[in-house]
């Protein structure tokens, strides 16, 4: 007792903890952060200094070039006169030729159409990119290809509308037969669609066009160029390669040896050769393999080859997704009594595709960048436009860096955007899992 009282009397002990003292000067504030992060050891300091020096070199090389740049000149000679020996870019070439860089030789009066198609493309992609948006918008995504085609190539509206009708016909056939066999119904639907397109679209479209001539000024494929062609090739081939890629991936996983062999051979062949050789095939060899007398657009031939190329890679990405699914999912499907197509469609593919989204996005970025290779087979994409008509014009012969920097920047903006979006998607899907 007395002990306690003594303690109470000698109230020596604190009742509440001391407030934490600030760390010593050397361990806080920006100074500490700098020291701890950047100069924690000799090696680290050397790295920091090297990095700073590299940044200095880059900035000192690029900044004067951009700041002194000439934006208003009529030719490279004019540019040189204005710069008068200073280091600076001749950006006037971009100011004068940007429509060609973006649209190629697309008729000037029709730029609005191309822009509208571009804006609508984003509207169509939105429901795919942002899951929060109402699902009804997917209808627009489905219809967009036809609107986009009509806007860009022009001509009568009845062709894309009838093409759409063809798909509806195919779908109706599919729905009608779906009960019997999914695969058979799919084939029958595709066949019906092909027949409709092959036999009916032409005559009906010309008939309707003569009755109600709703048409836009037609534009030839060869007039399309610049970034527009990179965009068209990128989006079309990407979208087309997805279903083909899924089919190939399923084929590769299949138990049927011949189907599997065909898919494996196709995938390995395409993945084994550089895209540029496939483009050579599109530009010089494909014509030989078609019946004598037929010939179609270079752009269409290129779309075919790039789609084949992309779908092989896509197949591998999706196969990765399929392989990553636990075996239990397959077994669960079987135990519910679902047949192969049902379990694929309802259980396996939705999950596998979700897993493969990051790789699919990487393929999309790669594909978009690879569309620049078409410049090698004399298509006027943005690089073809730069290396061909613009750099050989009497006014601008001798300009070099400015145009390539511009093209690089445009690609960077789009690809970086896509990759950032994919990271966002990855994070979102990750949290959904946990």
């Amino acid at each position, binding site marked *: 007792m007395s002990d306690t009282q003594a303690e109470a009397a000698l109230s020596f002990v604190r009742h509440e903890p001391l407030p934490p003292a600030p760390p010593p000067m050397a361990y806080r504030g920006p100074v500490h952060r700098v020291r*701890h*992060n*950047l100069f*924690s050891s000799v090696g*680290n300091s050397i*790295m*920091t200094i090297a*990095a*700073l020096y*590299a*940044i200095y070199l880059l900035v000192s090389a690029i900044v004067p070039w951009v700041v002194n740049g000439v934006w208003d000149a009529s030719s490279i000679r004019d540019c040189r006169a204005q710069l008068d020996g200073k280091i600076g870019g001749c950006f006037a070439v971009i100011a004068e030729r940007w429509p060609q860089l973006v649209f190629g030789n697309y008729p000037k009066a029709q730029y609005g159409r191309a822009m509208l198609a571009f804006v609508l493309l984003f509207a169509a992609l939105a429901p795919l990119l942002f899951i929060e948006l109402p699902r009804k918008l997917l209808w627009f995504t489905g219809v967009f290809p036809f609107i986009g085609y009509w806007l860009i190539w022009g001509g009568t509206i009845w062709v894309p509308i009838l093409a759409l009708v063809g798909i509806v016909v195919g779908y109706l056939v599919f729905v009608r037969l779906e009960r019997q*066999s999914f*695969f*058979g119904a799919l084939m029958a639907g595709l066949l019906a669609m092909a027949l409709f397109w092959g036999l009916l679209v032409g005559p009906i479209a010309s008939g309707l066009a003569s009755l109600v001539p709703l048409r836009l000024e037609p534009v030839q494929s060869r007039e399309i160029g610049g970034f527009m062609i990179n965009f068209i090739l990128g989006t079309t081939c990407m979208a087309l390669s997805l279903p083909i890629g899924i089919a190939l991936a399923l084929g590769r996983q299949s*138990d*049927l*040896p*011949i*189907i599997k062999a*065909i898919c494996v051979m196709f995938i*390995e*062949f395409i*993945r*084994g*050769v*550089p*895209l*540029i*050789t496939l483009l*050579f*095939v599109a530009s*010089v*060899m494909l*014509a*030989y*393999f*078609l*019946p*004598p007398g037929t010939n179609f657009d270079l752009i269409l031939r290129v779309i075919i080859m790039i789609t084949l190329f992309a779908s092989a890679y896509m197949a591998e990405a999706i196969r990765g997704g399929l392989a990553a699914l636990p075996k239990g999912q397959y077994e669960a499907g079987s135990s519910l009594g679902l*047949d192969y197509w049902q379990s694929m469609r309802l259980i396996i593919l939705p999950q596998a595709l979700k897993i493969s989204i990051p790789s699919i996005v990487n393929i999309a*970025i790669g594909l978009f*960048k*690879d569309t*620049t*290779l078409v*410049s*090698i087979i004399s298509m006027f994409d943005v*690089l073809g436009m730069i290396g061909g008509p613009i750099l050989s014009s009497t006014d601008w012969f001798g300009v*070099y*860096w400015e145009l*390539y*920097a511009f*093209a*690089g920047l445009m*690609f*960077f903006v789009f*690809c*970086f955007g896509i*990759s950032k979006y994919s990271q966002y998607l990855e994070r979102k899907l990750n949290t959904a899992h946990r």
Partner: protein
Amino acid sequence: MSAVSDQPKSGFTLGMLVNDTRYRGYTFQFIAFFAIIFFFGWMIWNAVQNLAALGQDISFGFLGGQAGYDINQKLIPFTSTDTHFRAAIVGVLNTLLVAFLGCITATIIGVLVGILRLSNNWIVAKLMSVYVEVFRNVPLLIWILIIFSIMSNALPAPSAFRGESPEARMVLDSIALTNRGIYVPRPLWLEGSAIVVGVFLLSLIAIYALRRYAIHLLFTQGRTLPVLPLSIGLLIVPTVLAYFLMGSPVGLEYPALKGFNFQGGIQVYGSLIGLWVALSLYTGAFIAESVRGGIQAVSRGQTEAAESLGLRPRRIMSLVVLPQALRIIIPPLISQYLNLTKNSSLAAAVGYMDITGTLGGITLNQTGRSFEAVLLLMAFYLVISLCIAGVMNIYNATVKLKER
């Protein structure tokens, strides 16, 4: 009495080909097989008809014809009087050369950058992410053009080395960095040099044996050997001794400015360097991402466990994290090697004479045999890719985690 209706149908009906899951597979395969055969047959038939109509034929005879053009970068002797076939071989070797060099440097760059991106050093980490993003998001073709052009503008021309007070000097008086390439001294193998080389190879084997022994010692007796100094000693001393004993049999031929260019020494051409740098930097950015992903995939607990054992950060990386990350990194790494090899076909943009530049470029243009040339080109790349893919599969099988 016996229920006839219960009798299993043993008979085979045609309808079962479609409706019976046992046979449906065969039907599909049969149809697919013949569809493919028909499709290819149709294409070949078209090609035959088209070629006949144009009065052309498919013939690889042009490969025996005289090429008529010169190639600067060559690993085997080649002059303009050699055949197109030999030109194609020169191209094949050049493709393999740049692919091989590129894979090595891209790996080094990729691993370094991948690790540095995770560094605590804010500036370095940011700089590395900028590098990765900038290279990954701009087409390779643009990079090749830009890098080649930067090199030829930043490095001095050989004429800058001329005169009383030249603007540029050779590094150590023996290496010339010019915008036409890099000139380094060429070793001259005199009599007795084989012995020096032999001694050098033997010392390499000895170093390998020493390391094996050191590990053995560490595991069995817990003793450590000073491996590094011993290795360096083994590497240098015997070779130097042999060199002087044999009377300095290995000389150096220095490059010297004669006429328009440096003569003598080994020239590494500017086009090779440009392509090499561009491919390495581009592929390196992708490899860096795989490396980063692989390192991050190693669970945090592994690092913490290693820390609690008292390992230092560098050791944790090299002994604990990287070996585990490698299993995740290697498959994408090899597919990057594959991509690099295929991307080397863009060499034509800088005038590097790889297979696409010789067979698919000048030979194709000279002879007009595009059909044959493109077929050969595809076959070549296919063989290379299949070889790399084969190696990859073998490797995957060996490093696969042996679970359960």
